[in-house]
């Protein structure tokens, strides 16, 4: 565990040093995967689905806010739909406008959550979403998650029924339009997934906000179990074709994601929990204080030998020492030494 914590500290340090490059790198990768997924699934407009366009959009979006990536993805989807059929593009546009009116007007900065949700479904790991959103967000995140699911199923339906939707005559267009609207809005599988993700987010968020020990781990496990049960039960009752392997694997991956998120964002030591009780004129207070676990990255000692006098200086290296402490034993030794020096008052004061 201590090795993991040391690694976390190292990651934090690396992030602090290169945050701008890491953020832009992540943004580029997200954009690239997103545009590649869209183009490879519904690439009806040939120029827009070229590698040049995919890469170009990803590069441009890297230097702009995430909201622009969302808009670019929306525009790309509409362009492909337009190449297939104008009425389909219009219905899709109306659905996107509805999403904007009813939710994204209020929190445009959270629009990227739709991308994450849609991407997770495209990559066949849907149940990572309820666990990640439930742990890091609030129940309101159900809305962007649902919008992402609706967008995914809309594009999936168009992908599957592309040949049928590309009807030329007027009566065919009208019939296709009605069928598209019906299929998109009444897809059993889509609503089942919306239901599973919604219940998953609510359960994970509810458990995570309780004052029980290991609430993040319990929340992740509960979220994984609930999503599996809901989707499997719905699959049987509604006779949908969701793969059970996909359900189970994505739930397991979701639980693992939950553990990683806990390590990154919520490292506490439950063994040192303090339960305190006190009162004032109006209330009795029952406070549970759980200390955070913080491990400093091991320091490297540099011995300076000068002509006058040998000096020993403690230096915190910013990059080169990151490869030094790899084994659990090393980390444990350093932690032990530190706690002992602290207790005995031997810790040297770090030079400014």
């Amino acid at each position, binding site marked *: 565990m201590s090795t993991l914590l040391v690694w976390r500290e190292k990651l934090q340090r690396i992030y602090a040093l290169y945050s701008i490059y890491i953020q832009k790198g992540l943004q580029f990768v997200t954009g690239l995967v997103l545009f590649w997924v869209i183009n490879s699934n519904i690439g009806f407009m040939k120029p827009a689905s070229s590698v040049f366009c995919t890469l170009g959009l990803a590069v441009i979006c890297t230097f702009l806010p995430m909201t622009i990536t969302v808009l670019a993805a929306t525009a790309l989807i509409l362009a492909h739909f337009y190449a297939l059929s104008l009425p389909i593009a219009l219905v899709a546009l109306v659905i996107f406008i509805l999403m904007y*009116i009813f939710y994204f007007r209020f929190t445009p900065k959270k629009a990227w959550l739709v991308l994450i949700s849609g991407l997770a479904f495209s990559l066949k790991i849907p149940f990572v979403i309820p666990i990640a959103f439930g742990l890091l967000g609030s129940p309101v995140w159900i809305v962007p998650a649902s919008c992402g699911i609706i967008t995914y199923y809309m594009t999936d339906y168009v992908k599957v029924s592309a040949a049928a939707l590309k009807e030329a005559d007027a009566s065919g267009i009208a019939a296709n339009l009605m069928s598209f609207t019906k299929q998109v809005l009444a897809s059993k599988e889509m609503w089942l997934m919306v239901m599973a993700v919604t219940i998953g987010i609510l359960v994970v968020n509810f458990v995570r906000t309780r004052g029980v020990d290991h609430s993040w781990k319990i929340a992740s496990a509960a979220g994984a179990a609930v999503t599996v049960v809901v989707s499997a039960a719905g699959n049987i009752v509604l006779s949908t074709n969701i793969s059970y392997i996909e359900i189970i694997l994505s739930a397991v991956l979701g639980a693992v994601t939950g553990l990683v998120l806990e390590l990154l964002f919520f490292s506490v030591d439950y063994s040192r929990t303090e339960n305190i009780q006190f009162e004032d004129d109006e209330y009795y207070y029952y406070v549970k204080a759980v200390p955070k676990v913080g491990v400093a990255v091991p320091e490297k000692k540099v011995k300076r030998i000068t002509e006058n006098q040998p000096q020993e200086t403690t230096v915190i290296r910013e990059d080169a020492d990151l490869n030094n402490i790899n084994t659990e034993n090393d980390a444990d030794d350093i932690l032990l030494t530190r706690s002992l020096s602290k207790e005995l008052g031997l810790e040297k004061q770090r030079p400014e």
Partner: protein
Amino acid sequence: MDFGKYIGGREDVMLDKRKIRLMTRAAIYEKNYGEEDFKISSYYKKDYSSLNTWVTLIWITVGYGLAVAVLFLGWGEAAMEGITLAKLFVFAAVAIGAYVSLLIAYGIGAGSFYKNKHIKAKQRVKKYLRDLSRIEKINNKKEIN
């Protein structure tokens, strides 16, 4: 003079840590919130909240119209089969009821949302102005010295 709060090796390049902190905080604020917050805080809370609530209600009306149109596109033909006057009244009542409920829900929600937004923006602007006045005081003190 308290040299503990200064950094830098030579006397002529001594930097005031406190001033750097304040200026960094002010710059971060300007970058992330500044423009929007100044715009919001130029309104009174009630004006800002009610103006945006009205705008939201207009958007909701447009959105509701679009949603009904899409639903009608999908199920309109089936609904219109064998329609009677009584059925039509029921449909109209349901549609109006849903619209009014949506307006009430969003009206209340938007009112509270924009009020909170205004309060938070005001608080941030206040903090920012306080930082600016502290920076000014440090500058003035330096000039006197």
